C-alpha cells in the first residue's frame, strides 16, 4: 500500500530529486509521479539499478543482523550469569546496574531489529521502492546506499570475539583479576617500614621467626605488631584452634576505608577475630604470607582497582590455589607506609568459599 501512490500535486520538488554529483540536469519542476515514471525510461535522472537496490537491502540486512547479534550475545552472557555452576560469569565485566541496563538495551535492540525487518520486508514488497526517497542529500555527501563491508569490520569485532573465540572467558577474567591484584600489592613500596627489605621479605622473616619462636630485633615495630599480636605462642595456637563466630565481617572495601583514617582503626582492631573474604593470592613460597584481594569496580572492569589485606599465618596455608575465593579469620591491625595505611591480618583460619554471584565491590 504505501509509497506506491505518489499522487503529489504539481510542481512538486520531491526530496530525492537532488543528488549532488548525480547526472540530473533535468528540470525539477516536472510533474513527478512515480507511477508513470518508472514505466518509461525514467527521465527522473537517477535510475536505480537492481544492484543499487540490492546493495541497499544488503546494507539494511547487515544492520539488522549486527543489531540482532549484539542482542543475542548479551542474552547469551546473561544466560551465563543465570545458568547453574557458572564459575565466573562473563557479564560481570560490568557492574550489576549497568548489566540490567544492558539487558534492557539488548531487548530494545532486538525490537528495533525486528521493526526494521518489518520495514525492509514492506519495502521489498514495493516495486517502486526507492532507497533514496525520504531523505535528500546535502552538499556534503558523497553518498551511495552501497554496502561497504569494511564499515562493519569494527562492529563485528566484539561479536566475532565472543561467538567465534569465546572472548572474554572466565580464564581471561581471572588472569586480569590476578594481574590487577599483583599490581596493587605494596611490593617493595612499604618504605615507611624501614630497612632495605621489602614488605614481603620482612613479613616472611618475621613469620618464620615467629614460627621458630625466635623473633629478632631490627624489624619495624608496626609490622611486628601485625605479625605477632598478643600473648605468647600458646595463646596464638589456642586462637587458631578455636571455632567461634567472628566478631565482624567487614568487606575489604570497608577495611580500606577504615585503614585510611587512623581514628577509625579502633573500630576493628578492638575485635579479637574478624572475617574477610576475597581472592587468595600467595605471596611467599612457604604459604605463610598471602594477600586476600577484592576488586572495586565503579562501572566496568576497565576501572577496577584492588582492595586488599596482607595476611600472615603461623601455619602454612595449603590446598588453596591462587585466585580461589576464601574467607579468612584473624585479628586485624594497620600499618603505615608511604603516606598510606594498609590493613594487615594475623590469620587464625582460612577456608574456601563459594564466591558471591557478583564478586566485586563498589
Amino acid at each position, binding site marked *: 500500500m504505501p509509497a506506491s501512490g505518489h499522487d503529489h500535486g504539481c510542481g512538486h520538488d520531491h526530496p530525492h530529486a537532488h543528488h549532488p554529483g548525480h547526472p540530473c540536469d533535468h528540470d525539477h519542476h516536472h510533474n513527478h509521479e512515480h507511477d508513470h515514471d518508472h514505466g518509461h525510461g525514467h527521465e527522473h535522472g537517477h535510475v536505480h539499478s537492481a544492484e543499487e537496490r540490492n546493495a541497499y537491502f544488503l546494507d539494511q540486512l547487515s544492520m539488522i543482523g549486527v543489531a540482532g547479534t549484539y542482542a543475542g550475545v548479551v542474552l547469551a552472557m546473561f544466560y551465563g550469569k543465570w545458568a547453574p555452576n557458572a564459575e565466573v560469569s562473563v557479564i560481570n565485566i560490568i557492574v550489576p546496574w549497568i548489566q540490567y541496563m544492558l539487558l534492557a538495551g539488548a531487548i530494545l535492540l532486538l525490537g528495533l531489529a525486528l521493526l526494521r525487518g518489518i520495514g525492509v520486508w514492506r519495502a521489498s514488497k514495493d516495486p517502486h521502492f526507492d532507497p533514496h526517497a525520504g531523505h535528500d542529500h546535502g*552538499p556534503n555527501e558523497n553518498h551511495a546506499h552501497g554496502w561497504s563491508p569494511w564499515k562493519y569490520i569494527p562492529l563485528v569485532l566484539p561479536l566475532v570475539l565472543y561467538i567465534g573465540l569465546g572472548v572474554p572467558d572466565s580464564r581471561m577474567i581471572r588472569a586480569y583479576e590476578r594481574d590487577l591484584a599483583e599490581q596493587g600489592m605494596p611490593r617493595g613500596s612499604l618504605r615507611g617500614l624501614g630497612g632495605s627489605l621489602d614488605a614481603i621479605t620482612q613479613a616472611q622473616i618475621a613469620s618464620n621467626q615467629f614460627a621458630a619462636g625466635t623473633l629478632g630485633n631490627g624489624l619495624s615495630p608496626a609490622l611486628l605488631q601485625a605479625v605477632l599480636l598478643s600473648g605468647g605462642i600458646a595463646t596464638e595456637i589456642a586462637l587458631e584452634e578455636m571455632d567461634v563466630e567472628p566478631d565482624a565481617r567487614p568487606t575489604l572495601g570497608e577495611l580500606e576505608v577504615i585503614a585510611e583514617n587512623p581514628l577509625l582503626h579502633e573500630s576493628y582492631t578492638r575485635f579479637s577475630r574478624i572475617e574477610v573474604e576475597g581472592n587468595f593470592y600467595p605471596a611467599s613460597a612457604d604459604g605463610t604470607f598471602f594477600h586476600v584481594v577484592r576488586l572495586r569496580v565503579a562501572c566496568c572492569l576497565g*576501572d577496577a*582497582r584492588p582492595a586488599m589485606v596482607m595476611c600472615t599465618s603461623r601455619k602454612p596455608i595449603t590446598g588453596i590455589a591462587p585466585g580461589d575465593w576464601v574467607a579468612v579469620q584473624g585479628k586485624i591491625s594497620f600499618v603505615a607506609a608511604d603516606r598510606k595505611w594498609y590493613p594487615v591480618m594475623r590469620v587464625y583460619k582460612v577456608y574456601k568459599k563459594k564466591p558471591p554471584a557478583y564478586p566485586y565491590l563498589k
Partner: protein
Amino acid sequence: MIDVDRFFVIFTSIVYEALPFIIIGALISGTLEELLPQQFLARVIPKRRSLAIAISALMGMVFPMCECGIVPVMRRLLGKGLPLSCAIAYMLAAPIINPVVIGSTWAAFSGDRSKKDGLSSLEMVTFRVSMGFITAFVAASVVEAVARRRNINDLILIAPRAKNPHFADAVTKQETHQHVHGDGPRPHHHEHHRAAGHASPKHGEEPSSLQEFGSSSPDPVGGVAVKTGSATQQQVVENTGTNSANGPRRSVLQRVINISDTALHDFVDITTFLILGAILASLFQTLRIIDYLPVLEANPLVAIPVMMLVAVILCLCSEADAFVVANMIPIPLGGKLSFLVLGPMMDIKLYLMYTRVFRTRLIWTIIPVVVACVFVLSIIGHYLGPILFP
C-alpha cells in the same frame, strides 16, 4: 609488551558497558527525529544566545546523558533547530553536570578520601561542576562566534533521516498539502540546491568514505537554510518551518518503524566509532599508564597537562573517573581537577564519535578552547581550593 588477556577484558568491558547508553541514545535520537517538529527547538529556546547557552549547559540536570549516549542525540537536536553553540554547551557539560555523575563524584571523594587534597567531597563536586560549566560556556561562546562567520556546512554533518519509503510517502503527502497553499520560494530553493550540489567537491574535506550523511531536512524552508551555501546558523534558527510530525497522521506502526530506522542507523554508526575508540583506550590501559603516575607528585604545572593527557587516552566514563582519580593519592589537586573536567569532554573515543557529527574544523576549534580553559581553571582551582575551603 601487550598483555592479551588484559587487553581483551578491558576492551570488551568498555564496549558492553557503553552499549546500553548508546542504544538509549539512539532510541531517543530516533524518537526525537520522528516526533519533534523540525526547527521546533529554534522556537522554544531563549532569544538571548548567552542565556540559551547557559541553560543548555545545565540541561544535563534535567536530561542526564553520559558522553557516549549524548552524541547521537545531539546530532538530532541540531537537526531540530538547536543552535550549534547550545548543542556544544549541552554536549560538553551534560556528562559532568548531571545527577548521576555528581553523585558518583561525591561518593568517590567522600569518607576516607575526603580532605586528602584539602577539599571535602562537596567542595570537590562544586569545583568539578563549576569548572565544567565555565569550560562548556566558553567553548560554546567561541563556537557561536565561529558559527556566525562560517557556513554551517563547514562545521557540522547533519544526521541522516529515515530512508524508509513509507516515511517518504508521508512527508511528500504533507508537502503536497503545502503546495496547495503554496507560496514559497520554490524556484529559488532549487537554485540553492543545485548550487550546493555543484559545490560539493569543495566540501569533501573529510577523509572518510563513511560520510554518507548530509543535510536531510524534509522541511523545505528549514531545509534550505541548512543546505544553502550561504546559510548561517542564524538563518537556520530563524527559520521556523513546517514540520513532518504535525503532518498527516501516520499509523503507530509506521511511526515506530521510522523510529527503528533512525535509531538502528545511529546505533550502527556510533557503535563503530565507540569500538575503534575502545581499541585504542584498552591498548593504552594495557600499557599501565596509571602505574607511572605517582611520579607526578606535587608539581601542578606538570601534573595538570599530564593528567589531561591521561584523561584523553584512558577514555573512562564520567561516572567512573572520579573513583579512579580519587585513589591516585599523590596527584595534586589541580591534576585531579583537570582529569575530572577534561575527561568527559574530550577523549579518543569521543573524538572518533564527534567526527560523525562535526567537521574537523569545528572539532579543532573546540579542542584548543576546552584544553586551554581546563588548564587555566585547574591551576586556579589548585591554588584557590585551599584558600576558599581551608
